[in-house]
């Protein structure tokens, strides 16, 4: 891995120009990811980005690291496999709210509790953008869309609460437009020893006229400015995560005693090398069946 000084965030940038709509929150989200990776001393050769499907899924194309753009909802299990096999690689999984909290919600719960040492960045725009504007699991219950003419009529998923209930060791939320804070929060997630989960408000300028830049700018409360909030305190975390009246930015919860998967399981080696002294041959095992 290169030292912090030789890697610039532009090294993570591909020559492909994003096809996101002008003004899309995903631009800001991605910039923060690239800066966060560079700032934490990661080299693009040593970084693996796994993306899902949807507007957010295209991020693998726009970043110049190793990357896999997979199947809708399955980014987390693919990223989990990469990181389990190669603890030496920095793995960042990116996806959208549909990818993570609807079709992939089962994987989300289990990725959280497995606590593999990687970061998970969800570009939450509360809408399905690429399929042209249908309700997402985080859409408001009265949000009218082509497939929900009178609104979904069901409460949105609270992904932070879902993470907390699943045993998360790091829960944060950021806003794509607050570049500096977003980058700082991403960095914390990368550096966390375990599963670093960041829900990013990443507005869709084309299909969502409710959860807009203005809405978030006006309503966002930064936990950094709340002296009473202690992110290492579970009760404090619960309070802000379950507070339905406000939108928060910052680190809600961080378990200081987090033990990531590979330490729990004693995996420290690059698994592509079979360690010396390990039995490699089935014949010894077969003999036991005499």
């Amino acid at each position: 891995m290169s030292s912090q000084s030789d890697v610039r965030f532009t090294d993570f940038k591909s020559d492909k120009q994003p096809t996101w709509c002008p003004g899309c929150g995903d631009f800001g989200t991605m910039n923060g990811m690239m800066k966060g990776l560079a700032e934490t001393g990661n080299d693009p050769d040593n970084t693996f980005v796994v993306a899902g499907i949807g507007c957010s899924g295209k991020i693998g194309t726009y970043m110049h690291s190793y990357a896999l753009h997979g199947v809708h909802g399955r980014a987390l299990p693919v990223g989990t496999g990469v990181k389990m096999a190669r603890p030496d690689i920095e793995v960042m999984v990116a996806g959208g709210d549909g990818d993570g909290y609807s079709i992939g919600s089962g994987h989300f719960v289990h990725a959280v509790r497995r606590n593999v040492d990687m970061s998970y960045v969800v570009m939450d725009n509360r809408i399905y953008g690429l399929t042209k504007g249908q309700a997402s699991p985080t859409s408001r219950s009265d949000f009218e869309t082509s497939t929900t003419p009178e609104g979904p009529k069901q409460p949105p998923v609270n992904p932070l609460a879902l993470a907390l209930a699943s045993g998360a060791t790091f829960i944060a939320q950021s806003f794509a437009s607050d570049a500096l804070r977003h980058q700082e929060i991403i960095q914390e997630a990368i550096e966390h020893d375990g599963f670093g989960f960041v829900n990013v408000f990443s507005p869709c300028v084309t299909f969502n006229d409710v959860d807009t830049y203005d809405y978030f700018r006006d309503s966002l409360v930064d936990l950094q400015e709340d002296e009473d909030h202690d992110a290492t305190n579970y009760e404090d975390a619960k309070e802000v995560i379950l507070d339905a009246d406000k939108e928060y930015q910052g680190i809600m919860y961080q378990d200081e005693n987090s033990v990531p998967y590979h330490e729990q399981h004693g995996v420290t080696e690059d698994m592509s090398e079979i360690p010396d002294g390990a039995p490699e041959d089935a014949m010894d095992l077969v003999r036991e069946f005499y």
Partner: protein
Amino acid sequence: MSDDELIWRIAGGSGDGIDSTSQNFAKALMRSGLNVFTHRHYPSRIRGGHTYVEIRAAAHEVQSRGDGYNFLLALGDSFARNPQEEAYYGNEEIKPLSENLDDLREGGVIIYDEGLVSEDDVEALDLEERAEENDWHVYPLDLRGLAKEHGREVMRNTAGVGATAALLDMELEHIEDLMEDAMGGDVLEANIEILHEAYDSVNEEYEFNHDLRAPTGEHDAEQALLSGSNAIAYGAIDAGCRFISGYPMTPWTDVFTILSQNFPDMGGISEQVEDEIAAAALAVGASHAGVKAMSGSSGGGFALMSEPLGLAEMTETPLVLIEAMRAGPSTGMPTKPEQGDLEHVLYTSQGDSQRVVFAPGSIEEAYEQTRLAFDIAWDYQIPTIIVYDQKLSGENTNVDVEFFDREPSPDLGSTLTEEELREAAHDNSGKFKRFNHEDAENGVAPRSLPGQKDGRYLATGNEHNPVGHISEDPDNRVHQMDRRLEKLESIRTELDEERESTQTYFGEDDAEYGIITWGSSQGAVEEAIERLNANGHSVKGLSVSDMVPFPEREVTEFVESVDEAMVVEMNATAQFRGLLQKELGRFGEKLTSLLKYNGNPFEPAEIVEGYEVNLADEDREPTAQVRIEPAAGD
């Protein structure tokens, strides 16, 4: 039907220890120098329900269960009883005796547990009358009482084994040795006492009036008793696989369990995950990162793997998936074997399928083809599926230990070094042309691994250009699709020209008629052909183990060389015959299917009968629960 064989059936309640008792008895027979084959019949519940295990033992080779059996040890189903008091639930307890009588051969021996079944129940069976008719020799023994007296009630299995040994004139040495390996302390002491007590009391109390005795034999090499699941797991280990992710499902769980127990000691990882989508997706991730990885399931779970399987095809990620078939559709019959998922593994997932499928027919082939699956998957960057079934998974047979004396093959196939990557083609932005159709050999464009310099690229499930960027350019599409499909032709060429064929042949080359089968029906077909030829018929057999790419040359030569052929498989819609006709595009007039799908594997006699009705034109309907169906185009 062979007189010099023992087919011992132990019947009782599921959870009564039938499995462990029979496993040890099979090993004792193997250690005495016999070849053994075990067949397991059990319900999908943890305790209770009727279950049995059959052990066939002979000096000659045994590759299938026999026709019927000749020794019944009916233990009595203890879980049918209310544990609070000794009240019966109906007449459940008699079932291990009552439900097993139909398949017992003439001259057979019966031990039943007098201590667990009532005289009235036995009387209701007309056992005496039937015994007389069939020349059965019945030995009622109070196994339960004997076990209680010297140890605990559950040890009546041991009493049954002791009594079996006495009636078969076997020595107790091997049985005792195996008990010493498996237990210790008071439990061992009590069991040894019960074993001897039962053995001695049978010898003292009874004058034997049966002819059956344990056969004698000798092995000239070290043996081990293995199942198809063991063989698949060991094939994976020797191929250098060190990562498995899965979700439990019968019968796939066996392979998952064996590797979960062994991988941690080998620096490997086993992870039980939330569902089969995740299971296969984790394996794709691990493989992509440079580790030999696998996953697997049975039919229903494999359905969930369609997505990651397609992703592996499109991203050209090496992957081995195991599919352990059981009777379907849907939940079907979870503990019953069937070969009904062939089309499922061939075609599941959207688009043109680009995968290799192997179907081993024996324990040796299961090991051999699992290793081959890893070699092919990593050399050609293509998912490879091993499809087998509940039968091969659970059957145990003895194998020469020497068979497993092989060099492991952990190498990662067509992967470039950093030096090679520096020289490789890149685009203007420095992305590695990992999917470069221009320099591909046999359809394979070598890959880089994360962490390597000059190897960065995008892998995507979208159609993509050489650096992995999404592309809908028509020329690129055709180049990429053709290159991926070319691999299958190259693999066929390699299998035909450089590897030993995994197709298995039986009988004489110049035989007039043929029997074709695939997968786990192989053993029963082999035995049926021996019998048919011994009865003056002229039959040869072909058991096909490569499903994709299809062994066109070998199968064509076989079908051309016979007047007619019968295709034997364990499903209702002739899936393999369909594949054969699709691949070869002819021979409809020569082929007829013999199909069985009642949840039990073929017995050799059923195939013999099917042949006689079908190809030898005997004017009668088969008595077995099978179906004869002419091929399309007949």
